[in-house]
């Protein structure tokens, strides 16, 4: 992830973002994911290829994603989709990250003690 200064902040949440996007769409390919994130955040958040593909391959190895190759414009395109385990795991991980963000927000909004 590359955008201004958020690379380290996004590092731990990339896999959850992928799972969430795939929960929403039946199947997506790598480039489509980068563009979707860019569109959703109006270009504020950019996922670099160097971070995206290792994350996708890792999720596939964990059995959370499955792949399917289709021929598009005469070339092979690899689509990723959630497995049954992936659907279950996605819900858990999303809830976990949301709860973490809520707590983080509480700490960040802490008013200075008098």
């Amino acid at each position, binding site marked *: 992830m590359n955008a201004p200064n958020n690379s380290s902040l996004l590092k731990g949440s990339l896999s959850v973002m992928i799972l969430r996007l795939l929960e929403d769409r039946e199947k997506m390919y790598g*480039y489509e994911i980068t563009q979707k994130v860019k569109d959703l955040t109006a270009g504020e958040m950019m996922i670099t290829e160097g971070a995206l*593909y290792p994350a996708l*391959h890792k999720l596939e*190895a964990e059995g959370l994603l499955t792949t399917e*190759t289709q021929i598009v414009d005469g*070339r092979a395109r*690899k689509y990723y989709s959630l497995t049954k385990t992936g659907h279950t795991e996605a819900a858990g991980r999303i809830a976990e990250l949301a709860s973490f963000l809520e707590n983080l927000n509480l700490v960040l909004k802490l008013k200075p003690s008098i």
Partner: protein
Amino acid sequence: MPTLTQLTAIDQHLRKENWLLNEDLITELTDHYINGIDERLAQGMAFDVAIREIHSGFGGRKGLLKMEEDYQLSQTKNNGRIIREKIALYFRKPQLSITILILVYTSIRVLPDMFLNWGDSWIFISLLGGMSVLYMLALIHLINNWKQTNKTKAVSQELRVFLQVIFSAISLCFYIHIWMPVEQVIIRYPLPSSIIITLFIIIELATCELLFDQLQKKSIAKPA
């Protein structure tokens, strides 16, 4: 849509300039490069600048090579997981019946005063036939993939699994005969021996299934 010269340049960029070898990864990255370059060309960017920009997004050659290494590892892990899942299926209905059949057969084979022998045993012939059919189908799929002229031909991943199946079967037979007094062990411990043989057969079957699935998945890639 990039021209044929540009497509060749992308292919050379990945294979020659960045030393990538894994066909599956190259196929995936080629599609990514084409999409990225398409978008940049539409914005008026030059082809060379576009390819460099995408390349830097991957972390340059170092990043690509690291990705390939990690990809191989994750694929090995993935294959291991699938084989374990397939083996587990042989202990649940309906595949449990195959396990029982193999176990019964191996027990009959190793028990003293056995009444069946390799030559006239229908169970042995069925097993051998089944395994041979699987091997042959996998080999036919592999050859068909090799014959493809486009860049999506399956080499590394399927070939590795295929060699794994053949090599494990050959080495298993070889080492058992070289290092173990097989007949003595079988005569002394017939039941454990038949269980071990059954397990090895199931592992081979599960690996064959994985190979077959992967090749079939590749051969059924159809237009979206």
